[in-house]
């Protein structure tokens, strides 16, 4: 089975560490990849694709040197490989225009304002990853204990994908 990654993009290493720490409980099932710029993120996305793995969730800062977060997200939305990836903007300084663009062109799924509540970040990550695996994965059982089990069970019921043998 291919691995599903969480991608975190944030230019300040200290902030990046906090994000990763807040999501540490998910790391056993969804390894976290870190990038300090859009440039590095593209490199990581390429490597993950070449490995035959997937990206389930991208958490991205907006204001960064070089390309901005929203630009990266629009790019990801337009690439078949990352189209289904759930996209979360984690930022303190995105203006209205950038946010509107992210919603319209990157199909932004969530917007989290800095500073964030760690519990809320975890909840958002679980929610988004649950949606991702329901949309993208055939076998939901491996994610039951780390994601929203109730929604996953509901999806199994509605899909009827597991039959009695």
């Amino acid at each position, binding site marked *: 089975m291919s691995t599903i990654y969480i991608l975190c993009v944030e230019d300040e290493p200290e902030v990046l560490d906090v994000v990763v720490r807040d999501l540490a409980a998910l790391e056993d099932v969804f390894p976290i990849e870190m990038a300090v710029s859009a440039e590095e993120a593209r490199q990581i996305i390429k490597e993950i694709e070449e490995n035959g793995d997937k990206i389930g969730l991208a958490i991205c800062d907006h204001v960064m040197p070089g390309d901005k977060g929203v630009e990266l997200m629009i790019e990801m939305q337009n690439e078949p490989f990352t189209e289904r990836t759930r996209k979360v903007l984690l930022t303190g300084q995105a203006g209205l225009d950038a946010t509107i663009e992210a919603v319209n062109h990157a199909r932004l799924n969530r917007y989290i304002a800095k500073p964030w509540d760690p519990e809320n970040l975890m909840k958002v990550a679980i929610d988004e990853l649950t949606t991702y695996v329901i949309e993208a994965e055939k076998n939901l059982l491996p994610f039951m204990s780390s994601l929203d089990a*109730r929604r996953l*069970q509901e999806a*199994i019921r509605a899909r*009827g994908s*597991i*039959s009695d*043998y």
Partner: protein
Amino acid sequence: MRKKEKRFPDWTKTVVGLCLGLIGFMIPLFVHFDGLSFAGHLTLGIFLVAASFWMLEPIPIYATSMLVIFLQIVLLSTQGPLFQDSSLPEFQLEAAAQEQVWQVPDSAVDGNQLWLRKGARSSEAIQIEVVESEAGFTFVRSGELSEGTAIVSDVNHKLVGYTPASYTLFLGTLASPIIILFLGGFMLAAAAVKYNLDKNLTNVLLKPFGQKPMFIILGLMLVTAVLSAFMSNTATTAMMMTVAIPIALQIDTKDKFRIILALSIPIAANLGGMATPIGTPPNAIVISALNQQGIQLAFGTWMLIATPLVIVMLLAAWGLMRFFYPPTVTSFKLQLDSAFEKSPKAIIMYAVFALTVLLWVTEAQHGIPSGMVAFLPIMALTVSSVLEKEDIRKLPWEVLWLVAGGISLGLSMENTGLAVWLVSSISWDVLPQIMLLLVFGFVALMLSNFLSNTVTATLLIPLAVSMGTSGIAGEGFSLVISAVLIGMACNMAMLLPISTPPNAIAMSTGYIKTADMVKIGGIIGIIGLFVALAYAVLFWPAVLL
């Protein structure tokens, strides 16, 4: 980037499975087994390849079923290349040499048997006594022969002992009454899920069980069992888990009540599947094997046999879990809001559901076979557009193929004499019948813990039935009781997460460890086997006679 873990490569099992299957298929082509017809050899090959593939799963189990049917229509049908143009070689008896003594070619005699030629493709064995043999001819004594009688001149001919069936017999298994019965059940279940009948019923039925944790568990188990008797065990488990998970989240992670919560649902779903013919696929194998022997088991009769067993086992499981995992939690909130859909389509669905179930359980009263009644939901749910094209596509068709392949293999095992040949190597009549049932039931239970329940039933039930029909098992061997008991034993296997899909679903929540499942599931399997045996001996004969 995370390094890929070095694991035992996935393809080893596939390669081993494929090789074993291929070897199994070849053995009967190169080795001759005495007493087994040519077609029996072919069927043995098909049986061995199917068994290896079903056990090791180098290909999906439903694909193996399709392979089985393919091999049967090619190798065993009248229209297939092997039997297409062949006819039995004939020898006509001349005038008697002495009183009741006839001269026949050596090649026509097989021990003390001779085959009468009934037609180009059918023959019948008769007993003879060999008087003497000389110069390629044998003199035999028999009262059943007369001048001009046509006998088969070569006992090793491929048509001896086997009358080839038309390929339509094998294809027809997919439309056999039991498959249609399941299709009807699948469509009812799909409609119930589409309109949330299963959820709403659950919420209504759980209300009377109050607020005490262990009573709520009892309620969960009973409702799970009732639903899984008519829906798939797996879908029922997933649905009930959506009720159980919010409870588990309110409870301290160390509280053993979480274990009970996660174990009770798959156990009840596995057990509930036994309650009706459509509850779970192994039941279909049992019923079709009996049909083949001309025994019709009515829907209501099955329920009468199985329901008391299910109830006792549910209570036993409940008591066991209470004993091993005494809960400390005293209360929690249980959200039970039911909102039955009231759209015209939903109401049609409720009516069709109720009427179908009513007609099924009263089969003995009105005499309309359940397979015929099953066409009522198939027709009504599609005519009324309750189920649309997309819903029909989503039905578990592969389960129907799996069962059809099993039924088809059973047909050939029976009519090529393979099943009798396989069981006749052991003299079973030295064992009392109850021991025989126990041994068979235990084998079924053990195999089924590791294999698919349906596959276990497919492999074992034709053997059990042929023990009864051939008289190998001695006098008074009841086909119905033995077949049903083995079917039940297959459904009672819930030792491991891999034993049944409901077990796998429960395990995935992380609330239980494999050891918990092995403990409770193992005890239930063993108790269940003995309780079923007691019922089979004491209660079933009263219902069936």
